[in-house]
């Protein structure tokens, strides 16, 4: 089994599925010879040719809209948007067409496509390269939003996203693209969509996070364990739809919850999880649900981004607060 980083796992999943299914295509800016600016598509054009690994003109709406045209014709396009900060030009195509093609044709046509984009802060990048706006996408009916947090989950979830019959927005936490290597068997086995992954069992409180923030969340859980607080850690993974069952079962057990996300706080996925727990798990709660999140500000330029992003310390403080409530 090879040791892969998250970005290598993304590459391996696409490579596997392109070999297995000739209808899988890759398209985007610089995805060809260059292999993508993060190298997610490295060697794919060499392996599968220019017709299947397509360097597109620099036009995000086209990339998404063209993917819709390919998908209704039976292809399975994997479109790369170079950074999430440039995805908004493609948003009209996603919300007005990709998400509703199946519905508005009563199943006559469908749109099995993946829109991949690196997202999130912490890599000292220029403006527009560090945002986490997954909540905008999670609000759109008809799509799935998936965020992996480890190489193995990136591999298995991307395979699942490619094979899914509906459009999937696949957001890759670029801060941890190369943070960690782990054994990933390149065997084409997909992970299930629409479910959370419980990364650590605990009985005192539930920490819910996704993407790169799981790194700090797991570190916080280790710290908490050392001071006698036994935290359960859930990787949300499926941002839309949300696996309510796993979350509510965990809350039933622990009665306490802290949600950790680097996105702005208001109107966020963290807010949605809070609402689910308040609506359906209120009687289990022993303390208020807390959110450790980014602020309702523009993502700062990189000199202040560590102040913006949730830290282990902030997570621990929030956990202690709900334990002491």
């Amino acid at each position, binding site marked *: 089994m090879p040791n892969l980083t998250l970005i290598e796992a993304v590459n391996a999943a696409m490579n596997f599925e392109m070999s297995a299914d000739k209808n899988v295509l890759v398209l985007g800016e610089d995805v060809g010879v260059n292999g993508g600016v993060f190298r997610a598509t490295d060697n794919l054009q060499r392996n599968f040719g220019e017709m299947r690994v397509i360097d597109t*003109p620099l036009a995000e709406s086209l990339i998404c*809209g063209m993917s819709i045209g390919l998908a*209704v014709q039976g*292809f399975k396009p994997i479109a790369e948007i170079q950074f999430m900060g440039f995805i908004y030009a493609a948003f009209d195509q996603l919300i007005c067409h990709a998400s509703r093609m*199946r519905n508005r044709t009563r*199943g006559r*046509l469908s749109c099995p496509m993946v829109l991949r984009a690196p997202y999130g802060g912490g890599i000292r990048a220029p403006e527009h390269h560090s945002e986490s706006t997954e909540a905008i996408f999670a609000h759109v009916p008809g799509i799935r939003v998936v965020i992996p947090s480890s190489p193995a989950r990136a591999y298995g979830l991307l395979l699942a996203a490619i094979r899914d019959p509906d459009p999937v927005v696949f957001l890759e936490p670029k801060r941890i693209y190369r943070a960690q290597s782990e054994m990933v068997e390149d065997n084409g086995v997909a992970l299930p969509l629409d479910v959370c992954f419980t990364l650590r069992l605990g009985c005192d409180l539930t920490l819910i996070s996704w993407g790169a923030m799981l790194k700090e969340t797991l570190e916080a859980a280790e710290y908490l364990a050392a001071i006698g607080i036994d935290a359960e850690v859930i990787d949300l993974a499926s941002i839309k739809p949300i696996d309510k069952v796993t979350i509510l079962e965990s809350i039933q057990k622990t009665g306490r919850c802290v949600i950790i996300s680097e996105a702005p706080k208001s109107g966020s996925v963290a807010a949605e999880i809070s609402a689910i727990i308040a609506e359906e798990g209120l009687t289990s709660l022993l303390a208020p649900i807390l959110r450790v999140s980014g602020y309702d500000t523009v993502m700062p330029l990189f000199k202040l981004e560590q102040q913006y992003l949730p830290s282990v310390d902030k997570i621990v403080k929030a956990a202690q607060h709900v334990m002491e409530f």
Partner: protein
Amino acid sequence: MKTIATFSVKYSQSLNPAAELNTSLEQLATAGIHSSDLLDFYQSMLLIRTFDTKAIALQRTGRLGTYPSCLGQEAISTAIGKTMHAEDVFIPGYRDAATLICRGTTMQQILLYWGGDERGMNFTGNNQDLPYNVPIASQCCHSIGIAYAFKLRREPRVAVVVCGDGGTSEGDFYESLNAAGTWQLPVVFVVINNQWAISVPRSKQSGCTTLAQKAIAGGFSGEQVDGNDIIGCHLQLTKAIENARAGNGPHLIEAITYRLSDHTTADDASRYRDADDLQQAWREEPLLRLRNLLLNHQLISESQLEAIQSQCNEEVEACVAEYLAYPPQPNSAIFEYMYQQMPCGLKQQLSELETQR
């Protein structure tokens, strides 16, 4: 300085508003348009006009939602439907009922859609055609993916995408032209220039002399055709579509026509449109000139024309009756087809809706 490139945009017209043909019927037959085709064109155009008139009446009497009339645009829209092959894919905007009907969509389906029932988008006959596209020009990007699919699979098929004069101002239009030229895709763009984007006239939409010339920036050719002349439209579309099919790349046709109706039944064009302009446009409308051509060449008699009109009326009335008698959708229709398999959360919401009734 030296000139490194020059471009030109051609205009063509075969049948002018005075019903004069710039060639003979024999020559036309050699070019593939026989007298029987002319009759067929007329019948299809009359059918869509009859349908259109009826649709507006249905809206005015509360039996249809907002409806975008295609009055005045019957020639170019019908020509697209008559020229495309069944295996080609049509990518419509929202004023293209004539083309869809030619391609096998039923009038009941079109009424269902504008009557607020999405079952109307489940086209029969042309089941790979895209559904109506209400946002402007976004469908152009879809046509790129479809044409790319044909090219990748080496299929001799063509994508034909339609937008209006207003649509040519959209980014998606330009992005699509650029991509079509880059990859030399089998796609034909038809810009139905009806002079109006709701209330904004063509003169305020673009500083370009022609909209056809926008193709040149995309790296391929564009032309203008009299969009009210179904013969000219058919001839030029045939060349463009067959060229694309043969692997010679994209083309753009700007069809000059006039929106004789309001933008939709929710609009009142008298607020912004000069009555004299409209009157002039009526003198150039597409059905009258073809009717006069048929009469002048004794290809049809007055009584046969009346019979065709009666036949159209009957056909439309039968479709309307079927539309009005269509069974209502269950509430579950809201939730079906959101995903191939309904996620748990949606099942829960559906059951909430069902129990709240």
